[in-house]
């Protein structure tokens, strides 16, 4: 007896994901806006340095602290450098800091968390202890301490941000791994003779990734704010590197005397970027797991 039930053609996972995303974006104009903004920022980060009108490091002491005008759209700073060029070029550095921090914490926290959730036992306890110790610190102060102790380079800022966010990622990853540990597909993989670590990397981690992606978007915003805060205190990147946080810190002193553009434009860029990442996080959450929407 043949089975004559018609079976609808199965869509590939990617196609269904795209369809779902398009649906969510259409429902939610704010998220669409956030995606568009994200693309704009990405473009600025990738192509900004080639496209800016002035060399961000070139000083011009005849043109210091000029307000926004036709030659300098965002005005000039205290050494005569073009603020627009500096803000645009800084996009690459801040974007890099964001992406690097998030990648690092995903690797560190995600791996530690899934290992803890999957294997349990002493791995779980050790990871839990480390996470608890980190969480007992006021997080910004811990970041300050790490950068102060190791030196203010971009690498250390990225490392500090990753360490500070470790507990959160470890916890989420651990919960997800725990839940999926007894799932059917994991059993199947085990039965077909896959080693534990192979299951971990091949099955669990890809399933945990979407949940973490939402958090990663939020962490990108946090990483930039963290770097900005550190720069404000004097623990940020080295001069004359253009970076939004350090530009706000330097520009703050000039606000009282009326030269608002020094601090305002990098601050606005900071806010727009972080805002975009936060909204993006919301949108991603809707795509990935609508039940968790807050």
């Amino acid at each position: 007896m043949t089975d004559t039930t018609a079976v609808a053609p199965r869509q590939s996972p990617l196609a269904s994901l795209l369809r779902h995303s398009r649906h969510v974006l259409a429902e939610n104009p704010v998220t669409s806006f956030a995606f568009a903004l994200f693309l704009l920022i990405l473009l600025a980060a990738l192509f900004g340095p080639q496209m800016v009108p002035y060399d961000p490091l070139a000083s011009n002491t005849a043109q210091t602290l000029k307000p926004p005008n036709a030659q300098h759209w965002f005005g000039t700073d205290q050494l005569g450098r073009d603020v627009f060029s500096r803000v645009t070029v800084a996009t690459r550095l801040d974007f890099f800091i964001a992406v690097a921090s998030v990648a690092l914490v995903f690797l560190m926290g995600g791996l530690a968390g899934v290992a803890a959730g999957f294997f349990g036992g002493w791995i779980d306890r050790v990871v839990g202890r480390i996470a608890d110790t980190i969480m007992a610190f006021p997080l910004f102060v811990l970041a300050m301490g790490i950068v102060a102790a190791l030196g203010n380079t971009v690498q250390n800022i990225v490392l500090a941000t990753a360490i500070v966010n470790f507990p959160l990622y470890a916890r989420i990853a651990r919960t997800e791994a725990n839940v999926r540990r007894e799932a059917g597909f994991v059993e199947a993989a085990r039965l077909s003779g896959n080693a534990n670590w192979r299951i971990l990397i091949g099955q669990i981690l890809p399933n945990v990734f979407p949940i973490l992606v939402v958090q990663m978007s939020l962490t990108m915003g946090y990483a930039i704010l963290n770097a900005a805060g550190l720069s404000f205190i004097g623990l940020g990147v080295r001069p004359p590197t253009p970076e939004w946080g350090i530009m706000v810190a330097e520009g703050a002193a000039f606000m009282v005397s009326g030269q608002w553009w020094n601090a305002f434009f990098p601050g606005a860029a900071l806010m727009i970027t972080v805002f975009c990442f936060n909204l993006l996080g919301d949108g991603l959450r809707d795509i990935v797991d609508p039940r968790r929407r807050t």
Partner: protein
Amino acid sequence: MKRREFLKSATALTAASSLSAPAIWSRAKAQSRQETLLIVSESGPNNLDIHGVGTNVPGYEVSWNCYDRLISHEMKTLPHGTPYYDKSKFKPELAEDMSIGDMSVTFKLKKDAIFQDGTPVTANDVKWSFDRAVTVGGFPTFQMSAGSLTKPEQFVVVDEHTFRVDFAKKDRLTVPDLAVIVPCVLNSQLVKKHATEQDPWGLEYTKLNTVGSGAFKVTNWTAGSQAVLERNDNWKGGPLPKIKRVIWRMVPDAGNRRALLERGDADVSYDLPNKDFAELRSGGKLTIVSTPYSNGIQYIGMNVQHPPFDNVKVRYAVAYAIPYQKIMDAVLYGLAEPMFGAPANKPIEVAWPQPHKFYTDLAKSKQLLGEAGYGNGIQEPIQFSFDLGFAGVNEPICVLVQESLAQIGIQTMINKVPGANWRTELTKKTMPLFTNVFSGWLDYPEYFFYWCYHSGKSIFNTMDYQSSAIDGFIDGARAAAANGDAAAYDMDVKGFVDLAFTDVPRIPLYQPYVNVAMQKNISGYQYWFHRRLDYRSFEKA
């Protein structure tokens, strides 16, 4: 647990743990604005005693105003009308008479001078204080030694009101060194009561309490927040100050300090960025007084013991690459005396600071670099360090110089060194390239050069410069000054200045200004060698 029971136990718990810290504030009535001087600065004292361990510069201001010294300086008036201390004219403070002998100087103390607790000031107090200064170590002892005051044996109590200082050797700087902040007179009886085995000089007590005979006393001090000083109405060291009370507040943000001044919520500040001073001056709402640092220079230093700066041609290349005028304009806003660009035919004078003949010429700089063997520049970035404590000025200087050096092919990497670590770095003498400022309290060329250029491993010879020729000139000048040999002195001074410019281990940039901003109704500001405020001369209309 029932809610009611919980609340009952909670109140009991709170009551038991309520803090019982001592009251911070005095109960004195708040006096009117008119009699009070309100000063705002970025940081305040960490110790009220200049003899203390690790006392910072704001602590010196407290010592100056709350303690007396044997002698002080008369004031002269600069062309712009600012009272400026006269380094060669002394006036009595605690001593009413000074007679300088061949190998000693004798002081007669004022008989009516009393400490703030009523005890009379005697020569024993003076000896005890001076012994303390040369024994405690650290900065005070170092400063005393600058005037050849090193051993307690030099300090002799002749009688209750007569005190003598014996010279270890003839040194022109001995008497001026007695007028600086360090040899202040403390109430030895009072401090001895609080001394212990571990703390024989009572440093813990004087850290928190002023025990002098000076015009002011600290009545309230919250470290890092504010210090309140009240006038000592029984002051015998000079005419009674017009200001009765000084409130010194620490406001970390420079923008806030400026806003306070502009709105009239603060009376005096000297801690603002140069740009603010320049603008406030043209704004006209406040009085701005700018005076050059006595004996002070901001410079670019290079370590002359290691490549590439061991090659004098490389040092010349750097000297011609520095964007001097850009620094004057964009960093200082004109608030400094340029120490560069003197005409080529100008003879060396017997004075310090004086400008050198280098100026910005990138072509010449590149050529010199080529002659030195670095035709392709220096690709490996050289660490370019500065003191983060003075980042407002140091950072833009370094950024501008870095840009220029890049244009002649020398790559550098900026290194911000936190203030507390700066001294360590200077001592190590390993920094290849850096900027720093040095100024000496005793305004004599040979003094400056002794600390900055002599090979004796002084911490201030930051370039690790070793030259027996310059040592000869410096030692000669000091000896000539001690013996009163003007001709030899002039020759030696010209000698070491000329050598400093020929060898150029450090490149002077400018002589900074001390800037003070005051409300229009404040008068009486005096410039002192320590560049801090003297509250005793201020007046409020």
